[in-house]
């Protein structure tokens, strides 16, 4: 370094600082757009329906979507590496089925939860192995995983299995009071803890950096000696683990296990991640954006519930439209940076 310092020129850092801030914010643009959209929808809702503007309506967005938040966290990791995980919805259903069946047979709830988490992350790990070592597209491998998990649900039972176990029903009814007569559920706390953990892992650890580096340019990551293989496998295991956690949270919420549950939830998770500003080709995005993405999906549903006259299919149509707008936004953004 010292021999080279003769090259140094007086830095012009101060003069360019404002421009830098502008440029850096361009990276957050899609995520910020999502936040803006969410606020706008909340404002419009409050204008139309007086009771919309309440803290509890906002908190309900979290309470009703804890499982989707957790799924979106796992999906964010996968999409950041440039992959995709289609199995998450089916793994949620499988987790619920396994939990409901074993609880009915009188298993200890703690043991049930641990087993479900092992199954979920194990499935993810296996899919990661296949993707990495046989060099098969994640789309196909996780599609196969999705069919496997869904099929296993049917093997367990075609009927809906109720959950009557004390801990689960307790969690379903538990409310954590907040000031101002507001409340949240324990699931929300867990989901937010997971989001926080994911945020720190992605932005402050070597593992997180490697995730971004793989999505940005896998070849260069390999030539830098980064642990590309291990990271890619781990990302799918993580997504599997998140699916299992989401399955437990969904059990708290629905107090049953049903083979047909969580159909298409993988697509909701992908939509939330993309709306949250993560590039589908990987390399750039934020887990907090994905959470906002989930809230946007939630508020669309709330809207339709408040309106009362619209069929619930309008949710899908609005989400479809939003997704298209965000993909177009990202395309414009990508063109600018290219």
């Amino acid at each position: 370094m010292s021999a080279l310092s003769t090259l140094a020129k007086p830095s012009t850092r101060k003069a360019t600082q404002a421009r830098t801030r502008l440029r850096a914010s361009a990276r957050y643009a899609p995520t910020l757009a999502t936040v803006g959209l969410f606020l706008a929808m909340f404002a419009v809702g409050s204008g139309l329906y007086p009771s919309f503007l309440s803290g509890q309506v906002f908190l309900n967005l979290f309470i009703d979507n804890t499982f989707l938040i957790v799924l979106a966290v796992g999906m964010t990791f996968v999409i950041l590496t440039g992959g995709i995980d289609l199995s998450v919805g089916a793994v949620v259903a499988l987790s619920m089925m396994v939990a409901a069946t074993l609880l009915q047979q009188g298993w200890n709830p703690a043991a049930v939860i641990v087993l479900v988490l092992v199954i979920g992350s194990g499935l993810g790990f296996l899919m990661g192995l296949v993707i990495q070592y046989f060099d098969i597209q994640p789309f196909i491998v996780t599609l196969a995983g999705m069919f496997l998990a869904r099929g296993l649900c049917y093997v367990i039972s075609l009927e809906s299995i109720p959950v009557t176990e004390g801990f689960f029903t307790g969690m379903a009814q538990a409310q954590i009071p907040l000031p101002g007569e507001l409340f949240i559920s324990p699931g929300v706390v867990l989901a937010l803890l997971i989001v926080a953990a994911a945020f720190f892992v992605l932005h402050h650890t070597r593992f997180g950096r490697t995730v971004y580096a793989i999505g940005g340019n896998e070849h260069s990551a390999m030539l830098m000696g980064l642990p590309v293989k291990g990271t890619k496998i781990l990302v799918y295991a993580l997504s599997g683990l998140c699916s299992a956690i989401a399955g437990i949270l969904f059990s708290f919420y629905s107090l049953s296990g049903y083979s047909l549950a969580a159909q298409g939830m993988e697509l909701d998770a992908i939509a939330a991640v993309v709306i949250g500003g993560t590039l589908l080709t990987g390399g750039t995005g934020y887990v907090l954006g994905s959470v906002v993405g989930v809230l946007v999906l939630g508020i669309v549903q709330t809207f339709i519930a408040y309106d009362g006259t619209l069929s619930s299919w309008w949710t899908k149509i609005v989400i479809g439209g939003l997704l298209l707008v965000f993909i177009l936004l990202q395309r414009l953004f990508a063109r600018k940076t290219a």
Partner: protein
Amino acid sequence: MNVPILQMRGITKTFPGVKALQDVTLDVNRGEVHAICGENGAGKSTLMKVLSGVYAHNTFDGEIRFEDEPCAFSSISDSEKRGIVIIHQELALSPYLSIAENIFLGNEIASRGWVDWRKTNLEAAKLLARVGLDENPVTPIQHISVGKQQLVEIAKALSKKVKLLILDEPTAALNDEDSDHLLDLILHLKGQGVTSIIISHKLNEIRKVADAVTIIRDGRSIETLRLDQGQITQERIIRGMVGRDLDSLYPERTPQIGGEVLRIEGWTVQHPQDHSRTVVHNASLNVRAGEVVGLAGLMGAGRTELAMSVFGRSYGRAVSGKVFKYGKEINTSTVPQAIAHGIAYATEDRKHYGLNLIEDIKRNISMAALSKLAKRGWVDKNRETAVANGYRDSMNIKAPAVSAITGKLSGGNQQKVVLSKWMFSDPDVLILDEPTRGIDVGAKYEIYTIIAGLAAQGKAVIVISSELPELLGICDRIYTLSAGHVTGEVPISEASQETLMHYMTQEKE
């Protein structure tokens, strides 16, 4: 005297900031094999793209006359209609389609919209016979070797009633046997009245087939040598190709060369897909502390393949040979091992292999040695920014801040980011592959200064470059490679462009 089949006059093609071609003249006579010679980057391929309509007629200046009629092509299909077919260095075949399907792709034998497969395969078989290829026309392209694929490309050209066949470095990817066959075929087609332009810098090939040679240097046509006037000699071609003065400036340095740092012995590498090709043959070389060693060679000589295979077997298969560091044998069979042994490799292809273009400067710099900034997996972001700012100042990376996205920087600044990244990993040996490719002259000088600085710190530096003046300007010792063999080792005091070019074009038996 007949009018030449092709006349190109005053061709000037400008890219933003670069004059790729300047007032180029090319006359090709009917029925001859005309070679175009020049160093990498001299403008040969650009000229052929101008001719074949890849660059539309309104994007360059000058006149093209083919069969004594003016040409104004806006696309390849325009030039193909006139019987000018170009075969690019990277073959344009669809791997999963059959030979016959590829030959007639875009030109299918059909009646009322239905493809006549029987006739297609029959015609394909006839064309294959003309190029001397004994393969079933229904074989998928991916199942035949690159050499045979090249012949399929020629068969495809024949199906288009080719009058002027342009081959861009046709033998660069072929083994000797396939090369010979291809050259024979070109001569055979010449007997049938097909005129060919062949871009090559393999002088023995040129001597074998060419009736005339046009030399391009720095985007200008220097001269055309003709066989019937006895002008095609190796000396004459080499002089034409390199005959320029060392006009760019190189930093002054007094080398302080220490003991040997890295030695490679008996290094042999096979092509990752084509097992019949050995890309590097039994290569041995060494580099000492404080020394800048050059690797010179023409395209396809195996320079990058040698470097990448040493750097964690990033290239090739069945790699054999030994690597010694400070006299002790080391294992560099994975990239992390190579890095742990203090080897760094800055790739020739910055955009695809060197940088994460959608990421910012500081994260690109820190990525290869992130463990230095991390405690128990936790990255110290303040130190990371400090380190990146340090390199921004010392390497003079022109960017508003280290949070700027690398994809937006100029080539020179991107290269400085790549170099910073590897300097931060604190290697003992740096292999720099084409460190100044695509960089403007001013920034080149800065890169040379950085290389000189690295050597002054006692690092061992290996520079791979296609630009001989550059190697002569910055190296202490230069190895030459030709067709995968180390053909020469020249100390800088004895090196000249002519001697290097002589070794670089030498064929080892």
